[in-house]
């Protein structure tokens, strides 16, 4: 298993495609073998006051007592070409609805906090990676094995402006 973060996140591009926010992360694998990375968002955090969006492609925040721990979904794993740059696309809803816990709602806020993440101006992405794909083992607690597999994490923060994809001018469409 990898003993330290090995990949480099070179660029983060954010766009609106078919009503979803798509983060495209250019991931450099400097090693001479294919590596593998989470390509599923596992934690989304957004601060509307600073417009900072953080997307974790790992499960390090899940403890054994987390209500989701026993049935964390199998992550999508993307192979990263050896000695090359692979684009990893992550799709997010344009509006994220966070369920506030009871402890946060002492002054009567609505249960759901609505985040318009298309307004984000800064994105931090954290990507777990390993030198083999993830294979589920039914004999080991799911969160423990996912955290072990994804123990090495690369991070990158970028300024972004989330814009819809450019449409070609009408003349090009006609031609």
């Amino acid at each position, binding site marked *: 298993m990898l003993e330290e973060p090995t990949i480099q996140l070179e660029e983060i591009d954010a766009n609106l495609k078919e009503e979803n926010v798509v983060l495209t992360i250019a991931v450099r694998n400097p090693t001479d073998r294919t590596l593998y990375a989470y390509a599923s968002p596992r934690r*989304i955090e957004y601060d509307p006051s600073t417009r900072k969006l953080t997307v974790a492609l790992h499960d390090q925040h899940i403890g054994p007592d987390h209500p989701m721990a026993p*049935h964390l979904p*199998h992550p999508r794993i993307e192979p990263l070409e050896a000695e090359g740059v692979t684009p990893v696309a992550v799709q997010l*809803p344009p509006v994220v*609805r966070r369920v506030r816990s009871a402890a946060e709602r002492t002054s009567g806020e609505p249960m759901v906090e609505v985040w318009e993440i298309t307004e984000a101006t800064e994105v931090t992405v954290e990507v777990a990676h390993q030198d083999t*794909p993830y*294979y589920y083992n039914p004999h080991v607690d799911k969160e423990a094995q996912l955290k072990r597999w994804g123990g090495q994490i690369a991070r990158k923060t970028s300024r972004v402006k989330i814009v819809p994809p450019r449409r070609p001018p009408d003349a090009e469409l006609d031609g």
Partner: protein
Amino acid sequence: MSLLIATTDGTTTFSDGQVQVDLISIALMDTGLGFAETTTTDIEGVTTYPVTYTQSEAGVTADRVDDLVNNTNGVPANPRIVIFGVDDSFVLSDGTPLKGNGVAIPVGVTGNPFTADVATFYDITLCGGQGIWVDAEGGGTTQMTTDVLLYHELSHCFHFVTGTTAPTSAEEEVAAEIDENDMRDVRGLTHRDVNSHNGGCGGGPVNCCIIASLATGSPYSEEINSFRHYREHTLRGSIVGDDFFERLYHSYYAFSPEVVRLMGRKPVLGDAVRSGYVVPLLGALELLIHYGKHRGAGVAGLLLDQSRRPDCRHAFGRTAVAGLVTQIDLVEAVVRHGALENVAVHAPSTAPQAPVEELADLIRSRIVEHELLQFALVDPLRIWARGMLEIHDGIRPEAVEEHVTSALAEWVGGLPIGEVWTSFSRLKAGDELVALDQFMFDRRARTTFGRRLAEQVPALAGVCTEWSAAEPEGGPDA
């Protein structure tokens, strides 16, 4: 009435209509099920209405609804259970997405929006329309439906409110999956494997066994599913087994992506790899599983059966197998004598030579250097191919049986010994050795492996001697 459906928190609306549809399904379309939509109750800022039920349909799932609604069978009036039907844009308070999932949160647990009631959320979009798969009983995958997903979460809720939650989250999950299978019976869906909690968005896990998947046409083919199930549930059931596969993957994935790329660039290689390697290897894996399950009995019969399979004739026929034996002998010569220049890959005569040679270079440079790859991917193929050749040559089945079981006993006794053994106490090492009994039941294998392990980890010499001399646990499957 302690089962309620959430409609809104004042700013966000929830999909109560789909919750109603799913509850009607769970209650077996019982017309006694009702929804008192005008009798709303505000629970900490969330508008809810109660479910009502006068049961007339008999069935386990309808009984569960009756218990939850009418507070029977130990279900108290409080805490109440509030159901939220949500789409794939929701996340829990810590940012964990609910997409493709459901969750039930007991009172007092971080993330519960209520101070005194149980909340359950489930993704009514089934992962934004992609669908949700879970591992199926007996191997393969089965799909999730919204009513089955809700019933699963209501099982957790039932346990929470009745104080019957299992001691560990894994055991609680098993209990909910056992209940879930009752709802699967109602829907006529394949049972879920309650000993495997894997699942996710889409049709199934796609990041595994890629060469075999390409060669057999699908990652979900019956043969791939069967081997995956055996690997996950039997072979990886011990620390040594899990460690073995982790190290094997490390070696295997050092070269397999290049094979896949080659196969993608040179489609002719797909046929060569399939008939020249993957299909025979699947035959060899079937032989190994049979050997372990039946304590070596009937291996000649299995080979005879394989030799007659019409769909494998191209790979299991005498000419193909004889060619394979020659190639493996050459690989062995490389391992023993370093004669690299002699290695080639068996391929159909119509295949252009260049890509085959490129593949041969790759295999030559990678497989033969790795003890684990040699042990797991070359040696079983050699044993299988030699046995198959004897079958084709009309050798008596009794003799084939003896040759093959002897070779397998020698092979399994040569299981590579990882560093993990040095971390074991004698007690733990004893448990791990017993776990090997499923394949090391033959006296020759036990003697060989026990001696090798004692040499490499002298602290375990005593336990190795005891294990080698003991009778193996268990017996052949019926």
